């Protein structure tokens, strides 16, 4: 099968859906002529024009607010917030409006929109450009939260997101945009709430998201040679969350490591750990170990950012604790 990048997969989904459905449009900063910071919307401005690829003022509140309004007006907006780090600037629109309108209005109206944004530390951009605070969105009921780790998942999940009538937060990861993978040319969807067992194994379960999926897979490969068989599961959507697939794996391996790049405290690794500690306690042989960004800001300086980003090293340490 043809191989394309994560960024191309996202682009392909947006393009396809715009072609198919007149009501799908994009708005955000530098998504038009510039094509987005990571090329995900490149050439769409040329193809569809400003109306449907709307470069906006530097106004995150307006970007999300207007997307909500446009959704209420019958469109299917795809707002882009350049970095997740800027979502605190429009958090009221996300938390108090986008997530709540359908509920507060007693189901009278839908808010179909896909807020695309970018997370992860990369390239030494310091504390305000390296965050992954999507636990804010997981902690906010009413949102769908999607974290694709491969080009295949990115395209399939974005197709599902654009078709869905709920407000979706679609989290892209900086370090994955240029990663490549097999992606069918035709249209396909991936259901929300369906984890993907990226690799089967018997001795230990690692639940990992985004870039950490790849770290976990690489490590599993290495450890296979040493005789340790690791199962790697990617939840793919954090809300809704597929507990069953993880439970089944823990039933088999009796050991769990959770790896997610959001910050440790009240982060996604903690949430997954808590679910398993509550519902699968009797199947656990060992403590649940979390791998996450430390309770610290991402620093600028190279050795510090390198120390900050959780990866294979941290996974190894975690494994040492349970094996």
């Amino acid at each position, binding site marked *: 099968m043809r191989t394309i990048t994560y960024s191309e997969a996202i682009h392909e989904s947006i393009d396809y859906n715009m072609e198919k459905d007149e009501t799908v449009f994009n708005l955000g900063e530098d998504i038009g002529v510039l094509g987005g910071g990571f090329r995900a919307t490149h050439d769409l401005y040329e193809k569809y024009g400003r109306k449907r690829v709307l470069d906006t*003022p530097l*106004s995150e*509140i*307006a970007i999300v*607010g207007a997307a909500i*309004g446009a959704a209420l007006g019958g469109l299917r907006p795809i707002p882009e917030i350049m970095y997740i780090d800027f979502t605190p600037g429009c958090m009221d629109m996300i938390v108090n409006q986008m997530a709540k309108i359908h*509920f*507060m209005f007693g189901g009278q109206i839908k808010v179909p929109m896909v807020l695309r944004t970018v997370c992860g530390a990369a390239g030494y951009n310091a504390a305000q450009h390296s965050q992954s605070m999507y636990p804010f969105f997981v902690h906010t*009921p*009413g949102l769908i939260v999607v974290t694709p780790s491969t080009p295949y998942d990115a395209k399939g999940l974005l197709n599902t997101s654009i078709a869905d009538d709920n407000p979706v937060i679609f989290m892209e990861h900086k370090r994955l945009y240029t990663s490549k993978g097999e992606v069918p040319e035709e249209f396909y969807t991936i259901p929300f709430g369906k984890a993907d067992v990226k690799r089967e194994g018997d001795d230990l379960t690692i639940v990992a998201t985004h870039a950490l999926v790849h770290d976990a897979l690489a490590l599993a490969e290495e450890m296979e040679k040493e005789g340790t068989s690791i199962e790697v599961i990617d939840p793919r959507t954090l809300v809704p969350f597929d507990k069953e697939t993880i439970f089944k794996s823990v039933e088999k391996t009796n050991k769990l490591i959770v790896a997610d790049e959001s910050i440790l405290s009240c982060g996604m690794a903690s949430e997954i750990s808590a679910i398993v500690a509550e519902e699968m306690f009797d199947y656990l042989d060992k403590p649940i170990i979390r791998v996450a960004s430390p309770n610290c800001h991402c620093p600028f300086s190279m050795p510090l950012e390198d120390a900050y980003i959780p990866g294979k090293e941290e996974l190894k340490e975690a494994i040492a604790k349970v094996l």
Partner: protein
Amino acid sequence: MKISNDDKIKMLWEMMRIRQFEERAGELYVAGIITGALHASNGQEAVPVGVIMNLKEDDYLQSSHRGHGHVLAKGGEFKPMMAELFGKITGYCKGRGGSMHFAYVEKNILGTNGIVGGGIPIAAGVGYSIVYKGTNQMVACFLGDGAANTGAFHEGINFAAVVNAPVLFVIENNQWAISVPRKWSDRLVDLSKRAAAYGILGETVDGNDVLAVYEAANKAVKEIRAGNGPVLLECKTYRWKGHHAGEPASLQYRDPKEVEAWLKKCPIKKLEKALLEEKIISEAEIEEMTKKIEQELDEAVEFAKKSPLPEAASLHDHLYV
């Protein structure tokens, strides 16, 4: 500007409906029958009525926390509104929203909002959807003088201006944001001056004179429907009651003399007087209107009382589609 007698009577009727609804809701609150956060608009009735009389059925409304009047003027009905205040499943929002989240989507009423300023960028986006679809609709977005100091105001109106969204932003300037007076909120005399910051038209009008509001809004609506983008209309008015139903109107922060002076500028009395003088209406007819509304309110309260509360088990309903 020529306004027909029928329209004038309709204005009176609409203002009376709002006033009486607010009074009834206030009574129910004080009696402990309804609860939650209730922001009454007594004294401000000319603004929603004067503005919304210029809208068409399929135009949109985006309202604020003090939104009963907007919803009523746009076609909100007593029964489902009252039921919503009672938290009943027959309410517009099935009891999930209450006063701060009144929405009636069938009439393109896109909700009151508990976040001050929160509706402004949303209105801009609804406006963009109109541009996008090329329909001849528009949006009326109501906000308070306090809301004019939020980031959402700035970003929302500027966005609307840039994309030429057909939105009439109406500042209901009642001089106070809860206990904070205008002089501690901004340095301006007229908040409509802010229109210049977005390159759009702005105007200030006596918000207690429904005919003046109607005329100003009419001009603005023409401008907007002509495709020239948003307009900012400031209506100067006053809140008669406490900030919310639980706050006595007499609370220390406002000078009683100020309150009294504004009570004398009742928008309903003002229109009544004019209509009586012009013999467009009689005292008896007004009396009859009042009674009719009271009766409708009685029925609405009865309806609300009899309607069922939601089941606890339905807590998660409407969270996702």
